[in-house]
């Protein structure tokens, strides 16, 4: 099971509390996690990545094992700790300004 932590507003949209647990088929990557997340919670389509281009929205960031992986390829394998469920995949609303 992959563990995903969503920011407050997306948890509210999806109607979930706490972490989301997902089955991901094949390699565990940003894309495969988001595909599984949007399939389970279609109301999140377009809120994390663009509907058409599939690019990450500008003020959304991805973290894994305390590393910012936002600029990694969406098809790059995520750390084994995320793939095994030992660590969550974090979707963060970026904070800017004071």
């Amino acid at each position: 099971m992959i563990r995903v932590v969503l920011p407050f507003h997306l948890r509210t949209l999806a109607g979930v509390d706490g972490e989301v647990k997902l089955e991901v088929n094949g390699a565990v990557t940003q894309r495969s996690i988001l595909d599984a997340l949007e399939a389970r919670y279609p109301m999140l389509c377009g809120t994390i990545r663009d509907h058409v281009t599939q690019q990450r929205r500008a003020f959304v960031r991805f973290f894994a094992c305390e590393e910012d992986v936002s600029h990694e390829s969406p098809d790059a394998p995520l750390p084994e700790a995320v793939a095994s469920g030992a660590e969550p995949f974090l979707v963060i609303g970026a904070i800017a300004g004071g």
Partner: protein
Amino acid sequence: MSTVRVLVGTRKGAFILTSDGKRERWDVDGPHFGGWEIYHMKGSPVDPNRLYASQSSGWFGQIIQRSSDGGKTWEQPGTKPGEPTTNPDGSPMGQSNKFVYDTSSATGKPLTTHQFYDGTQHPWEFKRVWHLEPSLTDPDTVYAGVEDAALFRTTDGAKNWQELSGLRGHGTGPKWQPGAGGMCLHTILLDPSNPERMFIAISAAGAFRTDDGGNTWRPINKGLQSQYIPDPNAEVGFCVHRLAMNRSRPNVLFMQLHWHVMRSDNSGDSWQKVSGNLPTDFGFPIEVHAHEPNTVYVVPIKSDSLHYPPDGKLRVYRSRTGGNEWEALTNGLPQRDCYVNVLRDAMAVDSLDSCGIYFGTSGGQVYASADAGDHWAPIVRDLPPVVSVEVQTLP
């Protein structure tokens, strides 16, 4: 007795204010969608319990919400968790927040760029929905005015949206440019006497009209003046802030232009200035009395640099002569130290016999008058900054 429901969109959520026809005691329900910007909410004239809301965030983008019970509960159309996300043919199920500009060859236009702040050409980029206008005849059909300026329509209750690309494609698109608030399509007026006719307005492009249900459009800006546009015959480029009409006389339009209050008696073919004795003719909202088509309301704002009322006095101005002659309405409104703004979609009227008028401010107040503006009182004082106000009059 009738009920009045005031739909208030704010920077931090939606609120629904309800009263009986006396409009003296109000129930305040909300916030709905707390923390999200609600640019607009509006109910279907056919089914008043069918509401649509534009919910947006700089982080997470656009969401469309729909209610079938007058705002008690809401859903994102077509996106229930656990349901299939594709149709049997593999096409996606409802994607209520998917606003994709039409670039198909079938429409015959590349629809690629508009003028940016620095004068260069810039590609259209969807940012948010500013205005939702439900159809006058079908609760599942809604028009959406978006930024960057374009008009979309749904015919399935907001599950899917398609652009009416004839508007952007009619030829002047490369000359449109964003106003200070962005390049937004903020006004959609449906002609109750002609289902093929509708009016829209864009800041800063101008006003446009279709006479064939949205397939083709033409600018209707003749007579508008702008100090920033030296060409007196410019077809587009005008920073129209809002349009208004009375349903009984849809060929007469009123406009709050960036500067100047304007009137057209021929469905926008030409405009005349009717600012008259207003203390300043800069402002955002404009509205028409529900039963008196010559009674018009504006909220003068000191200037485009200051965006607050002159002299610290919040005054609605009313003309009972269709413009030019204006009177200040002040009873119950703050007449000192008031520096709020009233945004373009933040004023509306009810349709009770004694017409009520309502507006919301950037300070979070929603004021109501049950006697056409003679007396005012706040319904609420401390909401987040108000972006939009709509009113439903329920039997």
